[in-house]
């Protein structure tokens, strides 16, 4: 006879982080509504990795699903953090940019199509260096074109986080959803330590990294929109709510004057206290909106 165990909700939740990119994307869409485009059986692979003795992957680490979310036409584009750290190559970038462009075309033709980006990435794939950087510029251009018509919702769940050029892309999105296990930043801690020295950033100081790049901090300082538990259902609900909300009145990356004034007001003579930014930047509690 088994004794019933009262497992807490945390234990029974369906972890999102434990899913791979494909399963994450699938979990966000209305069941039965989606199909994968340019999937692994189409074998669109990096031509550059095998030249360097590195095994390519048949989806190049980018999963594109087209379907609906809360009944609304949507495309989910997910980067696989487990393949080359989710880095952006020629093919993964082309898939991402093409899917965004097609969502824009559909939106222009009256079928407003929201894009959801699942970004787990270190940025440019250095083995494809300049084509990776060019791809990111093109993804950004595609995002800005779509954003005129339909929202772009970026989800950073962890554990890779979102760094490098794609952090800039995240900055262009309409909404950013993060977990506590996610990080968002342009330069990873190791890169800063390498470029500017250990006095500037000690990349082994985990507390420091999470205090600066962690999802809790990014949401609390108002540069990301919502902190969610690592729970597929909760992340799905957050995405649905932003799909339903549609375009924000103004995008964060258009708020130049607000942020320019905030930077001007900082004391740059010493390091900046992350907790101070939570108080001085986040207007959510005061004005009911981060924008």
């Amino acid at each position: 006879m088994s004794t019933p165990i009262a497992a807490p909700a945390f234990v029974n939740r369906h972890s999102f982080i434990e899913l791979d990119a494909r399963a994450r994307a699938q979990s966000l869409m209305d069941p039965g509504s989606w199909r994968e485009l340019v999937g692994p059986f189409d074998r669109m692979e990096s031509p550059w990795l095998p030249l360097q003795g590195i095994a390519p992957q048949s989806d190049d680490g980018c999963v594109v699903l087209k379907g609906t979310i809360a009944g609304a036409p949507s495309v989910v584009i997910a980067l696989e953090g487990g393949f080359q750290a989710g880095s952006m190559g020629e093919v993964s970038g082309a898939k991402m940019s093409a899917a965004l462009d097609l969502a824009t075309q559909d939106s222009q033709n009256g079928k407003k199509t929201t894009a959801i980006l699942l970004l787990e990435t270190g940025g440019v794939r250095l083995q494809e260096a300049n084509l990776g950087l060019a791809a990111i510029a093109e993804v950004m251009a595609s995002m800005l074109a779509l954003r005129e018509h339909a929202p772009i919702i970026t989800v950073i769940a962890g554990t890779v986080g979102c760094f490098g050029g794609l952090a800039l892309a995240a900055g262009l999105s309409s909404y950013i959803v993060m977990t506590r296990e996610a990080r968002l930043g342009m330069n990873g801690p190791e890169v800063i330590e390498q470029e500017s020295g250990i006095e500037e950033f000690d990349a082994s100081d985990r507390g420091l990294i999470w205090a600066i790049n962690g999802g809790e901090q990014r949401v609390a300082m108002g540069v990301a929109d919502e902190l969610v538990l690592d729970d597929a259902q909760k992340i799905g609900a957050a995405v649905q709510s932003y799909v339903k909300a549609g375009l924000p009145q103004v995008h964060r990356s258009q708020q130049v004057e607000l942020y320019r004034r905030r930077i001007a007001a900082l004391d740059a003579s010493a390091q900046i206290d992350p907790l101070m930014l939570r108080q001085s930047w986040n207007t959510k509690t005061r004005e009911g909106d981060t924008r």
Partner: protein
Amino acid sequence: MRGQVGLRGKAWFEALTGRNFPLEGDPGSVLTADARLGNETARFLCVVPNPAARFPCARQGEVGLEEAYTLAMRVREVIQQDANGTKRPVIAIVDLKSQAYGRREETAAIFLATATAADAYASARIKGHPVIALVVGQAISGGFLTHGYQANRILAFDDSSVVIHAMHKEAAARITLRSVADLDRLGHQIAPMSYDIHDFARLGLLHALLHVPDPDTPSPITVAQVQKALMDAVADARAGSKDLSNRLMSEGARAMRKAGLAARALMQEQWRHD
């Protein structure tokens, strides 16, 4: 090798605009001016080194917080001023080290700062401003994504110290666990990894490569030459689409980006198949 990054950019900014100091209220690291280009006025922008910058990791020609927000503001200003009139060309003169690698920058969300500048340049392009990047020196990584890479047309000097790349060589070697010599060797075999501007040109991302004699010291002849190239690029941008599709349709792209173009074509085909 030539000296400090940004000095050539500054020299060309001055040669093309007759000005070498920032607009009132702007940080010393961002030069902005409206100047004649042919028979119209264009807005020129350039990031230059500023040893007195408030943020210590953004003193040598890096794009930091102040630089990114100033660029965003000065580009948005053009969009606003020209909302009902002729769309002024926007010329980004590029000679920059990279984005700023500092803790202050990370803490204050440099990813958002750089996004605002890229957003402003792309918005100008979408609104019909011809946006031209003129790469006279280095154009590295997030610095170039912020200042230049959203342009309709990219021009670069054909010169050995001109580098367009995802990461500077020493850092790329460390991160990919290779020696600098290995990277150089790989660059010759694998064009997208190369630090040579001729290999970059093969990727089909550039509008033109400009052979400019003595590029560190603009002369009346070379200034006229560069102005002519800028005017041609402006005319070409005005005649073309407002997106970046020209980068995909170039001869170079058709030869060097076959895999990406095939992925795009298949995405298009499968997308419609509902």
